[in-house]
């Protein structure tokens, strides 16, 4: 199996180098971590390499962007907090709509990317999208001010 993997990597390597890339193949281990919280699957994937770099990404219930860490404790800590917050959130009657909104955001991002990469979009359309995003930001900021805080172990990263 390892031989087959190496051969496949070599094929990709040739194609990517012909496209102008530098390709670095690093021996590492990939770990899939799955929790089941009240019938909601919460899954993470992280990669550990020999140089002690950790690459963590949440993949379920909705993806969270890849982040790089230096220490194993950071990875476990992030997962621990994330899991606690999800456990809290599952008690909320809004959990289904929270997950649905997040999934819709992610889908919208992908659709917007396609729009940008495949079509010559008029400036007015881009402005309209920007304005709607500002509206959403304002709704989120306003909701923060009017809602009770339920998690105190750490402060929000983006809010």
């Amino acid at each position: 199996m390892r031989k087959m993997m190496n051969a496949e990597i070599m094929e990709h390597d040739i194609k990517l180098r012909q496209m102008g890339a530098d390709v670095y193949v690093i021996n590492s281990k990939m770990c899939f971590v799955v929790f089941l919280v009240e019938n909601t699957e919460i899954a993470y994937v992280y990669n550990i390499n020999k140089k002690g770099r950790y690459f963590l990404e949440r993949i379920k219930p909705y993806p969270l962007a890849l982040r790089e860490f230096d220490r194993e404790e950071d990875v476990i800590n992030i997962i621990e907090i994330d899991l606690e917050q999800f456990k809290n959130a599952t008690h909320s009657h809004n959990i289904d709509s929270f997950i649905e909104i997040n999934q819709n955001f992610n889908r919208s991002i992908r659709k917007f990317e396609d729009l940008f990469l495949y079509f010559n979009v008029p400036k007015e359309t881009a402005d309209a999208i920007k304005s709607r995003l500002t509206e959403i930001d304002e709704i989120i900021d306003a909701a923060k001010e009017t809602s009770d805080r339920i998690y105190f172990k750490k402060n929000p990263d983006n809010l």
Partner: protein
Amino acid sequence: MQFQLILAIGVFIVTYLLIMSEKMNRTAVAMVGAFLMVVLNIEGQERALHYVDFNTIGLLVGMMIIVNIMKKSGIFQYVAIKAAKIAKGDPWKIILYFCTITAFSSALLDNVTTVLLIVPVTLVITDTLDLNPIPFLVPEILIANIGGTATLIGDPPNIMIGSATGLGFLDFVVALGPVVVVIFFITMVIFKYGYKMHYVATDENKMKILRLDEKKAIKDPILMKKSIGVLLMTVLGFVLHQSMGYESATIALFAASVLLLISKCDVEDIFIEIEWATIFFFLALFILVGALEEVGVMEYLASKLLTVTGGNMTMTMIVILWVSAIASSVLDNIPFVATMIPLIKNYGVMSGLDVTPLWWALALGACLGGNGTLVGASANVIVSGLLARHGQKLSFGYYFKIGFPLMIVSIAISTVYLVVFII
């Protein structure tokens, strides 16, 4: 003694059948069989280790280290892309050049390594030419097995034979090289006409090949120079090892150690890539066959062979060639050769004849026989697996229709060669 004899034969046959069935991992099965022989006191631990051919093991490990370092430089991809460009994208010329590279590479490295290096480049080329990769990969499989037959280090059966008999690198090249060259050319001519309609590409796609930049394939130019230097020194070492009084494993392991040191590659990363499962498979087989020797089975079989053939060397040689070829086309040739080696040695002792022609017959039969079916050699299985991952299917039946007749042709040529030139 009688009970131990039956026990040893029983363990050996069951292990062999399980390896052949491919239902379980061959290394795990062979190890259980081998250490069962030790646990059952058919051979003690000391005796078991005595039967392990550490020259074969050392040669395999040494060459694996050299290849694992070399391939990090991108040299194989560079050579293959350069060849495709020299061929100006013409599919037939590309396959001819790639098969020539495969034959040379397979003569110096083992067949599995060779196909693992040439197949990814071939897939890139066939993707670029928008052609079916199977008419490119089937010739490469056959030529990898043919090229490996020519040298001591080209195929594991040859490594085992060379190690057990003291026959050196040059002995193999001189005895088997000429017939391998003939088989190579005849095979390529057959492919040229057999696959003629598949070797056609549009001018536009040929231009895409010419636009490939072979220099981009070089990952580490300094490592490439060091690797080429060490490989050339290794080949020179193999050529001279007998006259210098060194075992082939000494040459391979010394070269591997030097390359490990000067390449500055991460030693741990290189060692991860060593095929430990293959190494332990060899170890276990040596112990298994050693147990049969210990209880006198090999001596008995050799005496039977002597009785059947009446000491007629030509007949014995032809029988060994064809039986090895047919057996190796469906069985793993490594356990087969591991079993045949003590048998032929005992035959030589009993008959008082020079059995060197029998070693050449065994090498030709075991190496070329692997071309007969899709499961006949590891290289065939690997290529079929790589094609499956690439979304293509190389079926047993399709391969059999091409591989088996070509294997028969190569064995027929070998028969004539052995009878006319070797005996």
